[in-house]
């Protein structure tokens, strides 16, 4: 193919020449076909991978949600909407849905608040800043499974480090008197704490990148105008940080909604389904009824699509075609 000579000709003619000229000569037509085919060797592998690994399961999930399986897991034909009606009749479901909302709102909200503070701090100059920043990445890089298991260990009622510290500081009298992970509310609160713990590093880094994009002379102008620190932060920093904040929030919503290992490792969603979110509920249901689990995942997927749409609106997708 004649890529090198065509390069200059191709550039000014992006995909916008939508109307084909009526009487294209054979050579021109051939060229156009070649031109349309030229990207294929470059992007087909990536597209194929996405279609096979990401899109296929989506289709498969929808089909499964409409299938009837017997107790052995064999396909017994169409189930209509019965998997969905069975799912909505689950007595555990309302609690699971409420907890999922609390989970996402509490974790993402607190993560953003804490990260705003931490990012502000790490954006200032001080000796050893690089080392302190490195320490922050540990929960981000480490497997969430490992982090959750350590927290479970640190919370064990007879000799967990957190309880040892509480005992030594006088907050707790007897060992084995609190077993947080076996009770619904304390267990869920600790799971929220761990989720915040693993979400703050990425969020802080994303906000730091946003803070560094704010030009220094804006602050200079603010100082000259006599604005105080709070005023400057509220009227200058936050508005300029909005794009970074929005994207960080959306990515966090997605991560937190899809979060599985924290609850799985710390309580398994139990006792019963008392600490399950929809993700855990889906996983636990999959062990007994795959059709119903598929129905749950279709519901989850609906929420994900909504977040993706918000993400696309906030993204450079709007301007990519310019």
């Amino acid at each position, binding site marked *: 193919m004649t890529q090198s000579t065509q390069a200059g000709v191709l550039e000014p003619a992006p995909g916008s020449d939508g109307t084909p000229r009526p009487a294209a000569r054979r050579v021109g037509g051939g060229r156009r076909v070649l031109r349309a085919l030229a990207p294929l060797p470059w992007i087909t592998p990536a597209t194929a991978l996405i279609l096979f690994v990401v899109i296929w399961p989506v289709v498969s999930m929808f089909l499964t949600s409409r299938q009837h399986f017997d107790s052995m897991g064999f396909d017994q034909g169409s189930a209509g909407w019965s998997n969905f009606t069975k799912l909505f009749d689950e007595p555990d479901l309302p609690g699971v849905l409420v907890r999922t909302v609390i989970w996402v709102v509490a974790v993402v909200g607190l993560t953003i608040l804490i990260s705003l503070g931490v990012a502000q701090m790490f954006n200032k100059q*001080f000796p050893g800043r690089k080392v302190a920043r490195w320490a922050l990445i540990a929960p981000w890089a480490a*497997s969430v499974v490992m982090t959750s298991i350590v927290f479970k260990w640190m919370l064990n009622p007879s000799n967990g480090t957190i309880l040892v510290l509480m005992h030594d500081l006088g907050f707790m009298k007897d060992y084995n008197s609190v077993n947080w992970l076996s009770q619904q509310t304390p267990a869920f609160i600790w799971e929220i704490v761990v989720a915040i713990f693993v979400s703050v590093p990425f969020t802080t880094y994303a906000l730091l990148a946003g803070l560094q994009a704010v030009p220094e002379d804006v602050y200079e102008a603010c100082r000259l105008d006599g604005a105080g620190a709070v005023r400057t932060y509220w009227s200058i920093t936050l508005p300029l940080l909005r794009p970074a904040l929005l*994207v960080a929030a959306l990515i966090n919503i997605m991560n937190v909604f899809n979060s599985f290992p924290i609850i799985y490792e710390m309580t398994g969603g139990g006792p019963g389904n008392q600490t399950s979110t929809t993700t855990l509920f889906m996983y636990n249901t999959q062990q007994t009824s795959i059709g119903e689990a598929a129905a749950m995942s279709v519901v989850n997927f609906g929420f994900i699509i909504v977040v993706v749409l918000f993400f696309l609106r906030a993204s450079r997708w709007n301007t990519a075609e310019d």
Partner: protein
Amino acid sequence: MTTVTARPTPAAASALKAPAPRRLPRPRTVALAGGAYLIGLIFLLPYLEMVITALRPGNELHDRDLFPSHPTLASFTDIWSTGLGTNLGTSLEIAFGSTALVLLVAIPAAYYTARRNFRGKGLFLLLVLITQMFQPTAMIVGIYQQFLQFNLIDSVWSLILVNAGFNMAFAVWILNAYFSAIPKEIEEAAIVDGCSRVGAMFRVILPLAAPGIVTALIFTFIAAWNEFIVALTLTTQSGPRTLTVKISNFVGEYATDWQHLFAASVIATIPVIILFALIEGKVASGLTAGSVK
């Protein structure tokens, strides 16, 4: 009057009770640094606890103290008798396999979309952007059914494919940014000098984009290494189990050997944290690359 005379000698000024304005930030910086170190320490604590527990001898495992009195490395040598080596091998196979596959498909796609305009480019980038937001967790039921159909349960290949598919978007974005930043003239010069376009990509562009490639490589490796729910779902007890799944299964066992569990966790975690430190600055921008205008 006094301030004017004091100005030339700042030391004298600070000796007086009114400190010079330039000196003011110092205690603030100290407080700031102290606070930042404290935050850093808090985020390290669970991993320190991981190391400390791994160093405990078995008879001190349930002691109520912060540090063992006779730390030992025994757990790190004992652990291999549980077959951890096989799990380590599986994890390495999957992580290297997915990374190779991601680079193989992401480099051409990122290069072409950075250099050329073509019909369907917008659609392709939209597809990539959407998959960046998708995670396997929500689709695990579909993924399981799919690989069941293909008879790929308990196969390392299915895990390589899934990990590569869900992490490719990040690689495409970060590489696209790097390729776009390289001036076209450089490769045009190479082409004038007799390189083919593919040759120019290999000899000129890829070396220049090396930092981006390394970032994509490490990021994919870590993501595949840490992945949990797919590895848990697509393998059975007798199949190839990753380090993460193996460690998670340790917990369920009766009378968990926590010191061994955490020795395995240290092996699975510490190298990853160090690798990640190499690319820390670029990851946040890469994750938000498709989205920040």
